[in-house]
């Protein structure tokens, strides 16, 4: 089987600077309106809300005056799986092949017409990035006119998730074909959340391309499944070897430590190693 379908392979990824994020939620709003994400009449019960992008609040758990808060936006991580071979947790469990790994983009797809709603992928996703449609979408009168024709709406009984605004990639590629180009430029394909963030905390681009901002920010190690070489950058639950394509940056040590579960003493050992690496 040919793994990549057309020409050069991209590896689209996102870097989120947690020190810049103010937790305003613009990314969540932009995502919902861009991707026709349905909402309930009463959204007070968040248990079954659909939020492709969601902002978590982390605290360092210390009393005043040492209290510190960090907001963490969480889209789909588009995991490369163990060894970065495309065996993402959700892809490897889907019995319907309703979700697959795009070897040409590194994006994990979700095909709503193929999904039959077993929710196995939701169980396997360690980031809770997948959501189930408990009801058919119900738009307030007139709002259907606002739906994007580039994103197909979902029905009751299927799972959905962030697609890194894949339709924007499709459009960028169409333009590239029209202008007879092989590659698309960095600014031609940006996700809605990236563009909506007023603090400029989200950066999006090709992790394979050293000219792209995402690459410069985290310096992914190609020989180590894209593990960030920048000491301030980290990926959530790195030890699971899911190899997510969403990176986080923070100057604050407790924030970086919150990105994974560390055994007693493990963090200090790891931290000393990275500090030593930085000195070389």
């Amino acid at each position: 089987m040919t793994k990549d379908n057309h020409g050069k392979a991209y590896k689209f990824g996102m870097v989120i600077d947690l020190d810049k994020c103010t937790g305003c939620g613009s990314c969540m709003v932009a995502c919902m309106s861009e991707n026709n994400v349905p909402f309930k009449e009463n959204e007070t019960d968040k248990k079954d809300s659909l939020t492709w992008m969601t902002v978590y609040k982390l605290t360092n758990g210390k009393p005043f005056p040492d209290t510190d808060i960090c907001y963490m936006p969480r889209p789909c991580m588009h995991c490369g799986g163990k060894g970065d071979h495309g065996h993402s947790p959700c892809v490897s469990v889907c019995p319907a092949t309703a979700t697959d790994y795009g070897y040409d983009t590194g994006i994990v797809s979700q095909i709503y017409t193929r999904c039959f709603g077993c929710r196995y992928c939701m169980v396997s996703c360690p980031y809770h990035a997948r959501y189930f449609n408990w009801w058919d979408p119900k738009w307030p009168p007139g709002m259907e006119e606002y739906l994007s024709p580039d994103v197909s709406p979902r029905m009751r009984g299927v799972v959905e998730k962030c697609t890194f605004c894949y339709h924007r990639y499709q459009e960028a590629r169409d333009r590239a074909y029209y202008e007879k180009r092989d590659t698309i430029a960095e600014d031609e394909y940006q996700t809605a959340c990236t563009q909506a963030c007023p603090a400029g905390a989200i950066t999006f681009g090709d992790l394979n391309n050293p000219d792209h901002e995402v690459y410069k920010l985290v310096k992914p190690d190609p020989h180590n499944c894209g593990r960030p070489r920048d000491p301030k950058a980290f990926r959530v639950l790195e030890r699971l070897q899911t190899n997510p394509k969403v990176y986080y940056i923070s100057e604050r040590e407790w924030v970086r430590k919150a990105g994974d579960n560390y055994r007693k003493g493990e963090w200090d050992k790891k931290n000393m190693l990275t500090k030593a690496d930085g000195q070389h």
Partner: protein
Amino acid sequence: MNELKRKTENGSVEAEAEAVSSEQKAGEDSGLGLGVLFFIGAFAVCFLSGWLLFPSLLYSKKEQPLNFNHALHVDEMGGCDSCHYFRDDGSFAGIPTTESCMECHESQLGDTEDEAIFMKEYVEKGKEVPWLIYSEQPDCVFFSHAAHVIAAGMDCVSCHGHIGTSEKLRPYEENRLTGYSRDIWGKNIWGIKKNPWDRMKMDDCADCHERETGSKGACFQCHK
């Protein structure tokens, strides 16, 4: 013990019944022949109604709002792309809007009845013609004309057939259950496909992609 007894008794009863039925067999032979005949007849009726009647029940035939002569327009305008063109962002314009028709048809050019309808109903009222699109794919499909026509250099006929030389628009057949055009599912109830444009299901896309590019591609290549 009782159970065993009952079983043996029953067994002997069955054996007796068998003996009786073999005696009667000779007399029932003509009845069996009739039964076979009835079965074949009923099978034929069901089979034919399934294959011939059901498709016409499944699809409703709708007429286009007015007849469009493709052959005439191709003669006047040149290739397909004079009306079905790409926009500057690489997206495909598809069926022209009334506005783009009006670039030529500001006033009536010919003397056909269809053009008169078009002028009266749509140009003067400034309305779009509600064309029924034969090749409209389901909502979950992303089809890039740019990838096929510009990048792969395919011509329109490869997928759309010889619509450019047709003088009449055929009736649009809509699946009563799904609402999709019959061109997607295919004309032939036996599933026989002679031309690429006879059917446009996902497997047909995948077959061609497998043949031409060596891979069916990832889901998101054609889905949205």
